[in-house]
């Protein structure tokens, strides 16, 4: 087993092109490929715009999102670009303030999925044996739930609320993270540098995080980016069902749900927040695909 260390024959003949590329650090190469991706640049621009809007919401929004402007269900006009809602609040201002909740939801819930998922996946892949069997069975069983259903069970226990939605959406993505990380660990574990790190006397935890984790984070970053968008989507859906944010919060899913009764006469109440979600999630998907081509030189952008 130990005699068959792979890779020893590969270092012999580096192609001239590879040498030229090697002078740039892998991180910078990935960055260049990422920025060369047209979709990724558009996505990045959209995301930055949304981040600015979320951060500067009080300065950017034309009105107070909770202020009653007097006239309810006003059609979009020059004074109220997205019209006013059923209570006479400015829809545009509410959409801008809603970005704070949705972006927070995206990042926080990804954290709740990423951390336990990575720990489980790393342990399963690195230790193998019964640890692996136990964790893998657990992952399989969790994957037996369509993900929104798993989120529903968790909300059923925690009770409705936007913070609970963040936790639920995050936890329901744990099995996917764990599966992804476990697979990558298995492919990296047999590499000579891991063995070398072990021989020099590093602890398991140090090998796992410094040596293995550092080499598998490419696919993880791609998945996480896509997952932020997905979490925003699922979270808004749960709020639409009444399980997340509660009135009078300006949350995108909730706003569409409130606008549903007035759809026939005042479509803009339900439509505007949906367009906002669409543009945010498309941004994350574009960035995710760009990152994928950045980390994986085999995927060439056209």
């Amino acid at each position, binding site marked *: 087993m130990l005699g068959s260390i792979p890779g020893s024959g590969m270092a012999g003949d580096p192609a001239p092109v590879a040498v030229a590329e090697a002078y740039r650090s892998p991180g910078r190469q990935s960055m260049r490929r990422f920025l060369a991706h047209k979709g990724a640049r558009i996505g990045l621009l959209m995301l930055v715009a949304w981040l600015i809007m979320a951060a500067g919401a009080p300065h950017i929004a034309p009105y107070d999102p909770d202020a009653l402007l007097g006239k309810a269900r006003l059609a979009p006009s020059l004074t109220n670009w997205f019209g006013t809602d059923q209570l006479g609040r400015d829809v545009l201002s509410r959409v801008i303030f809603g970005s704070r909740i949705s972006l927070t939801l995206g990042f926080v819930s990804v954290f709740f999925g990423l951390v336990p998922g990575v720990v489980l996946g790393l342990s399963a892949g690195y230790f193998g044996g019964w640890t692996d069997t136990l964790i893998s069975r657990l992952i399989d*069983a969790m994957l037996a739930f369509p993900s929104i259903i798993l989120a529903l069970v968790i909300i059923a226990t925690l009770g409705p609320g936007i913070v609970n939605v963040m936790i639920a959406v995050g936890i329901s993505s744990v099995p996917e993270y764990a599966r992804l990380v476990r697979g990558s660990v298995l492919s990296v574990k047999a590499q000579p540098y891991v063995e070398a790190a072990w021989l020099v006397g590093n602890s398991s935890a140090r090998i796992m995080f410094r040596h293995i984790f550092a080499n598998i984070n490419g696919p993880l970053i791609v998945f996480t980016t896509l997952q932020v968008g997905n979490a925003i989507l699922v979270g808004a859906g749960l709020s639409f069902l009444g399980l997340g944010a509660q009135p009078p919060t300006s949350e995108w*899913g909730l706003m569409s749900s409130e606008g549903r009764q007035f759809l026939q006469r005042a479509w803009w109440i339900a439509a505007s927040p949906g367009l906002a979600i669409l543009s945010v999630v498309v941004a994350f*998907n574009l960035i995710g695909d760009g990152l994928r081509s950045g980390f994986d030189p085999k995927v060439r952008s056209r």
Partner: protein
Amino acid sequence: MQLYVMGRIVQLIPVLLLVSLIVFLIMHALPGDPATLMLAGAEGGMTSPERLAELREQMGLNDPLVVQYWHFVSGAATGDLGNSIRFREPVLQMILSRLDSTVELALFGLLCSLVIGVPLGLLAAARQGGWIDAVCMSLSYLGASIPVYWLGLMMIFVFAFNLGWFPASGGTSWNSLVLPSLSLGLINAGLVARLMRSSMIEVNGEDYMRTGRAKGLSPGLLLRRHGLKNALIPVVTILGLQFGNMLAGTVVTETVFSRPGVGRLVVSAILSKDYPLVQGAVLFLATVYVTVNLIVDIIYAWLDPRIRYGR
């Protein structure tokens, strides 16, 4: 083949046991006492300690967890998922009476995603880089980024309110099924199209396709006899996953279109804190999903003999 099917069915048992354990543990181990939650929700916040103790006893919450789990699993195995607290009816009956509507919606949604996705993917593969390819790519991006409920609302606005072609909600006739299944199908069609496209492009590069072209088969015949059969295999493998997406989608879609289905039942059960109903319905949905995936695996093994003889 029979041996393979038997083997797969036997493998299903531990998975289902684990699924039931997960549902059970989440419902019991996370913070939040079901009895307190229920009292707060169902009986207007009157949480006297005596009533709480009585309810805990009644629900068996004072038994050790292992005993409670045993009651849950042995009950579920014999088709007894307990009684709904709010409706005082057997949970299984409540689910079964709404299952038709949900399965109908999920199947038609799946059908829509295939009917739109497969031809689109084939056309995109045939004209790589053309405008159909661009449509295919955009559809897959939009499908992955549009909230299902929002697409449903917009379709109601356009096709029900403005054009009047289909009813906005309710109804039992076939045309009340069009908008919900179309909105579910459109969300997933992009994924199918993208997969179909890449699979077809790969198959087009295979030796047997070149042989077919070389011996002068007409493109249509080549596609039907050799190309499609092989290119469809990856699409078949994700049917189970797609069905899961549909099932998950019905939770939202049924609310948008006011359809009386299992998904809507779960949501209203959560909102009214009907804890046995949530537990039972979720276990039921997960079981359906796992079983459908098993059936897809079996179809896959039947389509591709390498699977069942391998290993």
